[in-house]
């Protein structure tokens, strides 16, 4: 087993050097019965462009998610429109299937225009 003891910025390992000497680990850290749901945030950076994934945040409902997204992800005019969707509603392809799903496109060069050699005399094509 490899023992990692490299120190990073803001990272001094998990030694017993804890700044609170007492070990008061509460079982219910929130004390409020669970976290707010997680939302994914998509931002349109300007009119005419697609919304693009920007990150995620916690909020109780869509309205709060949009308000929070505005503060967290658009403090410097990064966007003109925000989409939010609760993370649990996102369905994703399985990375293990990546080979089967995407590799077959590799040997179909004929789908690209550069596959075809035409005489120079042909213009505007």
């Amino acid at each position, binding site marked *: 087993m490899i023992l*990692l003891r490299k120190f*990073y910025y*803001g990272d001094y390992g998990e030694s017993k050097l804890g700044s*609170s000497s007492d070990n008061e680990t509460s079982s219910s850290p929130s004390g*409020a019965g669970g976290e707010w749901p997680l939302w994914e945030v998509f931002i349109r950076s300007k009119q005419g462009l697609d919304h693009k994934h920007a990150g995620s945040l916690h909020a109780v409902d*869509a309205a709060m998610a949009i308000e929070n997204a505005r503060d967290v992800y658009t403090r410097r005019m990064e966007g003109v429109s925000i989409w939010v969707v609760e993370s649990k509603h996102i369905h994703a392809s*399985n*990375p293990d299937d990546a080979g089967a799903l995407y590799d077959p496109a590799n040997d179909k060069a004929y789908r690209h225009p550069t596959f075809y050699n035409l005489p120079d005399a042909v213009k505007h094509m």
Partner: protein
Amino acid sequence: METNQETIFQDKVDHEIKIEPKDWMPEKYRQTLIRQISQHAHSEIVGMLPEGNWITRAPSLRRKAILIAKVQDEAGHGLYLYSAAETLGISRDEMYDQLHTGKAKYSSIFNYPTLTWADIGAIGWLVDGAAILNQIPLCRTSFGPYARAMVRVCKEESFHQRQGFELLLTLSQGTDAQKQMCQDAINRWWWPSIMMFGPNDDASPHTAQSMKWKIKRFTNDELRQKFIDMIAEQVKVLNMRLPDADLKWNEERKHYDFGKINWEEFWQVVGGNGPCNKQRLDARKKAWADGAWVREAATAYAEKKASLNPSKGGTSETV
């Protein structure tokens, strides 16, 4: 099977293909990242405290607006990073809990007090300056969500450093008392700032694994030297000096030599005995406890609204 997965993983890392949350990764890689990213997030959040201390006492409306914007950025950076860590399977509440119980650390620099207004400048110039040097290579770190968060952080961080330098520059051109305040802040923040890069390389014998995983790309000492070379020149513009009698240009090395770092102090502060450790942690715990009723009320409100109008589910506009 395990070895095969590990080979594929390492192969991706070697070819600079980012690792994404759902990809297979060694358990130790996941744990290392959770620890590093969450502690980085905690640093951003706790980092708001020393600066927040001066918002109400900023000397002008301009400076106040700048400081509020900066502190808000730090909150944002903490949130980007918490989200990145959550993709690895740890919950936000678990991370808060680790911070509040002292299991997780944050950057020790924030355990020093901000005694004068000049400290706000010194934090921007030195502390954020050091942080930027650490963060730029992290934009290329092997874990996708962390790298993307760091790109956003770095874009915003450069204003932080520049406003700090500008603040000190203004003081350095002021009255004798202002100049003195400026020098005093530099004196107090210099050594803790260069400690931010962490222990010497020979005190951390397992660099190899993290370098191999491309979580980290430069060693602590490499980054520290780069920082010192940079600041030793910038301080001349301020007409101030760094509090190190041994600091001088080494023509042979093409770097600045510098004095011995007091690692005893560093480990004392990491261990909880810095000037403000207790105060910082108490402030975070109090904020969390005081916010409990808000979290509960918001949840109750959302539930009630959803039950009154289940079809809309609380959503606002359509696309």
